[in-house]
């Protein structure tokens, strides 16, 4: 598999274990970008000439491919964004004030990424709503029971990651969706860490909104997707104004184009959309059951290897979707990462944009390894050896 990714040929010595931050790209995605710029480059929704027309048609067709990928009902429910962060902020800024008022509640998990935490914290502040943060499990995962318990009649928005980005737990969302819908609220799902690891079905999840990034899905940077329920998108005001998103512009007032163009002001990341199409095609060629099985095998192997090293704490559990966070007693995660880096092992050390979770775990940071389809048992073994080496090194110094 790794041989489809030119990055690994350019870095033969590197063990890349940071795909949760950003995934490497298959040759097909890189080729798609080049092909776009060489053959199709024209602005969309503007020109009548054949090139611009064809590029616009192809750009619009990608919505259908995305809709299929996450099982949305119609392509017009697919809004192209810059990233997960952009999509979640769009929902908070546009939909938020329509449904959240003073005294209402917004509920998130203590395991959320900052991108699915701060927009709601700030929306609560702006609207006078209560911002409720559900406790997490000891392992650092979202606790569905704790979330369920905190849904009240005043809960207007529940915002949850389908897969959390530190401990990698998969959150069973459908029952929570039912519960929040029963009280008249809405479920916003951060799919950033889910889409590359499992078949996503936004309808089965009961998601009112679902956001993800191309760059974590083997696609380009600068492109993301926001899915929304049609009736909600239709009512939402645009958050940015400019080209492409208008119906009519008069001096005194303007009217907006229908969904989804209403939310895509200005020239979009056209090449990014073409690259995303290639990433979706790459995903379509994968057997997602096999991907899950490989994730599971690597997670098990890594957890076992780490837990065999004295003084290692491992977060999450065996069902993590390809993400394993850990700490080595008495050694700061940054120091662990530096030792691993010297052994050409790329892991992330830090708060992972999840400071609220770090506070709950009582640590300033963790080391995190995360898998892509190109990772193997050999990568895991190298990491385990590297951590053992780090322990020896710092132990020896003690």
């Amino acid at each position: 598999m790794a041989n489809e990714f030119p990055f690994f040929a350019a870095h033969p010595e590197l063990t890349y274990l940071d795909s949760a931050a950003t995934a490497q790209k298959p040759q097909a995605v890189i080729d798609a970008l080049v092909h776009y710029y060489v053959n199709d480059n024209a602005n969309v929704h503007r020109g009548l000439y054949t090139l611009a027309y064809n590029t616009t048609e192809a750009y619009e067709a990608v919505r259908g491919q995305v809709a299929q990928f996450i099982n949305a009902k119609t392509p017009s429910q697919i809004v192209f964004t810059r990233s997960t962060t952009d999509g979640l902020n769009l929902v908070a800024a546009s939909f938020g004030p329509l449904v959240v008022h003073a005294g209402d509640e917004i509920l998130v998990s203590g395991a959320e990424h900052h991108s699915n935490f701060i927009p709601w914290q700030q929306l609560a502040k702006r609207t006078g709503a209560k911002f409720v943060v559900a406790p997490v499990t000891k392992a650092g995962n979202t606790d569905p029971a704790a979330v369920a318990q905190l849904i009240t009649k005043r809960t207007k928005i529940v915002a949850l990651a389908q897969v959390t980005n530190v401990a990698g737990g998969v959150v069973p969302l459908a029952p929570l969706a039912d519960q929040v819908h029963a009280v008249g609220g809405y479920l916003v799902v951060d799919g950033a860490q889910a889409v590359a690891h499992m078949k996503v079905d936004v309808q089965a999840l009961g998601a009112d909104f679902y956001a993800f990034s191309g760059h974590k899905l083997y696609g380009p940077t600068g492109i993301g997707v926001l899915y929304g329920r049609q009736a909600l998108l239709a009512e939402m005001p645009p958050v940015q104004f400019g080209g492409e998103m208008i119906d009519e512009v008069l001096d005194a007032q303007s009217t907006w184009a229908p969904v989804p163009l209403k939310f895509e002001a200005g020239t979009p990341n056209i090449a990014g959309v073409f690259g995303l199409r290639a990433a979706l095609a790459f995903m379509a060629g994968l057997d997602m059951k096999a991907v899950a099985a490989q994730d599971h095998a690597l997670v098990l192997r890594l957890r076992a290897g780490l837990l065999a090293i004295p003084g290692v704490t491992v977060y999450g559990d065996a069902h993590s979707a390809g993400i394993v966070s850990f700490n080595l007693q008495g050694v700061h995660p940054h120091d662990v990462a530096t030792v691993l880096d010297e052994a050409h092992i790329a892991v992330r050390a830090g708060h992972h944009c999840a400071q609220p979770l770090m506070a709950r775990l009582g640590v300033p940071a963790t080391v995190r390894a995360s898998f892509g389809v190109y990772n193997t048992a050999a990568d895991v073994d190298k990491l385990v050896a590297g951590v053992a080496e780090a322990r020896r090194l710092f132990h020896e110094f003690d």
Partner: protein
Amino acid sequence: MSLTKLDQLYRQVILDEANHPRHHGVLKAPTHAVTLRNPSCGDVLTLQLQVKDGKIQDAAFAGSGCTISQASGSLMTDQIIGKTPAQVAAMVTAFSDLVINGSVPDEQILGSAAILKGVHQFPARIKCATLAWKAAAQALTEGDQHD
């Protein structure tokens, strides 16, 4: 070659239709009205219908647009007068298929509007040709609720 394609698109009768459109203006007592825009190019078309006794009694369109959209508005309004909403719905589908594919089995139900079939060789202009027909479909399904 290219002149042939262009000749098919801009046949004399289409140009005449665009330059001297029929049913251009407003109705005195419309029962249905809808305004559609093609925001990428700026075309705008307002269609008014008077439906009585289950038939389109009268139709008128206004707005600005290219040769194709004006000719289409003229031909469309002329053809739908006297038809039932169900007949119009079938015509809308047939017209759309015609300008996308260049031919349809039931071309005859479109009458003289079928002359616009040359548009199928110009995919970028299909939206110009169908704007008036989309307006008719929309007016008949939801336009009355808005009046």
